[in-house]
Each structure stands twice: as structure tokens, then as C-alpha cells.
């Protein structure tokens, strides 16, 4: 029995040890990266990574020592080896030692842990302030003082999620409009929630702060590395929790300035063309894309809804009723339900297009047209 037990132990543990050692020796950057926390591109992310690695090393050393000793004891002090058990059962010195030494190790850990946390909290003197608002189930970004504000929603189509189409390379990591920030500028994020608690996390920045409705939290990032960085919502917020990613695009300063100018121009142009008459084809095309992103998640791809949970739009009294009321639903939302007010989230063009699309799809044949100017008028002349 003892030989079998020993063989069993060695047989099972040596491959594990071998794999760990071999893996460590052979692992290339890519493999290591898929196992470990990213170093990220900011001072804070580097600090988080550093303290993480310090902790891993300390825990590994302690673990190897304790578990190694245990394995030795299990091997050397087995009854089948014929040992007689000792009878000692206390030793004050050793108890004091293994209380004090870990406490000292903790004090050693506390120093880098504290400096790292001070970095996380250093939100003073930012160059740019961005208000981040968590919605069910998307993000809104507002550049404070610049008048630039937009929603950022998941762009992956429902078909890919439900297996009706093959998944793209950026499955669940693509959004309608990424957050854009410049290199070498300290960006402060003021984070809040619109409805329930969400959490804004960008691993490469080591920024994670909860988006709580009614209050604001702050975080910051400053990087010199342009690129695209993907993040996630990290607080359960309902059914779309896994479907509201964050994409941040870091551009070189000059490019960022160009982007910002274009965004402001967009707003100006938009205002000046709001009275334009859109054709049926234009409205349907735009409406279809808005619907797929902002409505299909709840009301489903063909407006069929989920009985008892999300109303069907096909043949619904609102969609087949007066346009005025239909516009009202989108502008005001439905209090006490999951239907939000989209006044703040979708432009007049988007709202008009999606209302038009719904009233003329899946068997609804209202035949009426809804123009962006109608939405603007509704908002202004109520």
C-alpha cells in the first residue's frame, strides 16, 4: 500500500511540477500575457502590475516553503514507514515567531501598496475632464467644456451573439464610437451612473471606478502610447452587463486635436442640416442600423419583443398609433420600466429614422414619414 501511495503521489505531482517549471521556462511573451495581468500603458497600471508581481513572488515563496514542507512530512512521517508519532503539542517560541514574522512581511508589503494607491487617487490638475455615464446598457462620454457628447454602444450584431452569423474578430469588443483621448495629457474621468450601478474599467489604464447613480467618482489616466484599449463594465447591471464594452482610442496630440475639431464641426453641421428632408430610403436605412444597435437588444431583431418582458413592436398600439405619442415614448421614456428616455442618447436624426423604420417594417405599414425636424419641434415646443 505504501509503495502504491508513494507512486501515486509522485506520479500525480511530478507532471504538475514539471508543467509549471517547463511552462515557466518555455513560456513566451504571448503565453505569459494570456496568463497574467497586463502591464498597461499608464503609471498607475504599471504600479498595479508591479505590486501584483511582488505579491505573487512573496506568496510563491511562502507557498513553496509551506507546501514543500508538507509534502516532505507526508512522505517522511507516514505510518507505513514504521514511524512512531511524537507527542509534543505546543511551543511558545515557535508560535511567537510565526506570528511576528508574517506581521513583518505585511509591513514590508504595505509600503509599495500604499504608494501605488496614492497614485490611483492622484486626480489633481487634469488637462482634460471627461464625464462618463453608465447606462443600461451603454456608455455616454461628455468632454466637459467642449460641448462634445456621444453614446458608445456595442456594435456587435445580435446575429453574431446568437450564433446566426460567425463571430467577428472584435466580437463584443467593438463600439459605435470609441472614447478618444490624446497622448501625454492627464485625463480625468468623472464617472456616474444613469440608472443602476455600473463600473468603468480599462485594464490597460488600471482605471476602475463604479458608476453610481446620484454621485460621481473620479479616476485618471495619462499615457504616451497611442493605440486602442478595450475595457468592460464590471458591476452587474442587468441583462446587458456583458454587452457594454468600453473602447478607448489614444491618438497623438495633433490627431486628437483634429478629431476634436471635426467632432465640434459635426455638431455645427448637424444643427444646420436638421431641417433637411430625408427620403424614405435614407430614413429606412438609418433607422435599421439605429434599431439594430439601440433597440433590438430588448425588442428583438424583428420587433417581436419578449412576451411579458419587452413589448412587441409589430402591431403595437403605440407604433401603429399617432406619431406624436410614438415620439413621446422615445423622448420621455416610460417611467418605472426599462424603456429609457432616448432624448439624451440619440440624435434627432436617429430618433426620427428609427421611429420611421419601426412604423414601416415587419408588417407595420403606417406609410407616414417622420423627419428629424419633427423631433426637434417636439422637444422644443412641448
Amino acid at each position: 500500500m505504501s509503495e502504491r501511495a508513494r507512486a501515486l503521489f509522485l506520479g500525480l505531482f511530478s507532471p504538475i511540477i514539471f508543467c509549471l517549471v517547463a511552462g515557466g521556462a518555455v513560456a513566451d511573451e504571448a503565453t505569459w500575457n494570456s496568463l497574467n495581468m497586463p502591464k498597461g500603458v499608464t503609471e498607475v497600471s504599471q504600479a498595479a502590475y508591479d505590486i501584483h508581481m511582488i505579491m505573487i513572488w512573496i506568496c510563491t515563496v511562502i507557498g513553496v516553503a509551506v507546501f514543500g514542507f508538507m509534502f516532505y512530512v507526508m512522505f517522511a512521517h507516514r505510518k507505513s514507514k514504521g514511524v512512531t508519532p511524537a507527542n509534543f503539542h505546543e511551543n511558545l517560541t515557535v508560535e511567537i515567531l510565526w506570528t511576528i514574522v508574517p506581521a513583518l512581511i505585511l509591513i514590508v508589503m504595505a509600503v509599495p501598496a500604499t504608494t501605488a494607491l496614492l497614485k490611483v487617487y492622484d486626480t489633481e490638475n487634469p488637462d482634460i475632464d471627461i464625464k462618463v455615464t453608465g447606462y443600461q446598457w451603454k456608455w455616454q462620454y461628455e468632454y466637459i467644456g467642449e460641448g462634445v457628447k456621444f453614446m458608445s454602444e456595442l456594435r456587435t450584431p445580435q446575429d453574431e451573439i446568437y450564433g446566426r452569423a460567425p463571430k467577428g474578430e472584435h466580437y463584443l469588443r467593438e463600439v459605435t464610437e470609441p472614447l478618444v483621448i490624446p497622448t501625454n495629457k492627464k485625463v480625468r474621468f468623472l464617472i456616474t451612473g444613469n440608472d443602476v450601478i455600473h463600473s468603468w474599467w480599462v485594464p490597460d489604464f488600471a482605471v476602475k471606478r463604479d458608476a453610481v447613480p446620484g454621485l460621481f467618482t473620479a479616476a485618471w489616466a495619462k499615457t504616451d502610447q497611442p493605440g486602442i484599449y478595450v475595457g468592460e463594465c464590471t458591476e452587474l447591471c442587468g441583462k446587458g452587463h456583458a454587452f457594454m464594452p468600453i473602447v478607448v482610442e489614444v491618438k497623438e496630440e495633433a490627431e486628437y486635436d483634429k478629431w476634436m475639431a471635426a467632432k465640434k464641426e459635426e455638431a455645427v453641421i448637424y444643427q444646420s442640416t436638421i431641417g433637411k428632408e430625408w427620403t424614405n430610403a435614407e430614413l429606412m436605412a438609418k433607422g435599421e442600423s439605429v434599431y439594430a444597435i439601440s433597440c433590438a437588444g430588448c425588442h428583438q431583431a424583428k420587433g417581436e419583443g419578449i412576451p411579458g418582458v419587452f413589448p412587441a413592436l409589430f402591431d403595437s398600439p403605440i407604433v401603429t398609433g399617432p406619431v406624436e405619442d410614438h415620439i413621446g415614448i422615445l423622448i420621455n421614456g416610460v417611467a418605472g420600466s426599462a424603456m429609457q428616455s432616448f432624448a439624451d442618447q440619440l440624435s434627432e436624426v436617429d430618433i426620427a429614422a428609427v421611429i420611421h423604420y419601426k412604423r414601416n417594417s415587419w408588417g407595420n405599414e403606417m406609410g407616414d414619414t417622420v423627419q428629424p425636424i419633427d423631433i426637434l419641434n417636439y422637444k422644443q415646443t412641448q
Partner: protein
Amino acid sequence: MENTTSHRNVLIKSLLGAAVMFMFAIFVLPPLYDLFCEITGIGGKTGDAYTATEVVVDTTREVEVQFVATNNATMPWEFYPVEHKVVVHPGEQKEIVFYAKNLTGMDMVGQAIPNVLPNNAADYFLKTECFCFNNQPLAAGDDAELAVVFIIDPDLPASVNTVTLSYTIFDITDRGSMQVSQLK
């Protein structure tokens, strides 16, 4: 038997005691709690309405105060600060204005809830007047300019140069008349 009588006595005493405890909890505790908050000054996120006393203006120091506005959930009002930032000296009284418009066809009541960042600045941001002290009714299509009058306490920690005052506006139309006093 003696047992039953004493048992019943215990029961009656316990029931009376429970009733007294509930009465105490409902009628005596809330005023006591208010008194406690008043005496200790604990309570409220950005402090009570501040009654301005003689405060010396610190002209050697400038603090940038930013204003952020956000709508909660289905609140459809237009709501934004007229100026998005000002620069003040600690001790200097300043008035700023938020604009609100009820875009719907119904009369509504809103409530603004303030928040100050960074956390350690909250105790030093003193509001003598704020539209957040009361709820804000707006008739359909109506708009309003909502004022905040504030002073930055000169004791604001030296490390703080920027203070951000944010308001989240909530729709409280269907909660009946509700005074949300910052004093509680």
C-alpha cells in the same frame, strides 16, 4: 396554578414592554437623531445650508470650480450649467447658474442631488443657497435658471486646486411633495 399565572404575567409584561419599545422607536428616536446630527454636525454629503459669517478672502490662492450636470434615468429635462467653470478665491462668495427646461408636455417635479469631488474637498464647499435644497417643479415646457451661491472654505487642503461640483437631476414627480432637505 401559580405557574400559569406567573407565565401569563411574564407574557403581559413582555407584550407591554414590546409596545413601549416600538413607541419609543417611532416617536422618540427620530427627534433624538436630529438633535444628535445637529450637535455633532455629522450628516449630509456637502454640508448644511451655510450661513455666511465674516470670512476672510484668501487672495493668494485660486481654486478652479467646475460644474457638471447629469440627468438620471428617464429624466427628460434639459439641464446644464451656464458656465462650466469659474475661478474663485477661498472665502469669496460666488453665484453660478444652472439652466433647466421641462421638454415634455406634462408638469413635473425634479430634485437635484449634489456631489463634490475630490472627497476631501466636500467639507470645505459651503453653499449658502442652492436649488438642491428644495425640489424643483417645472410646468410643461417651462424653463428656469437655478442658482447656487457658494463659498470655498479657506481651510481647503493645500493639495486641492480643482473642485468639481456635480448635480444629478432626478424625476420625483410621482413621489408627491417631498422636501429633500440637506439638513437631514
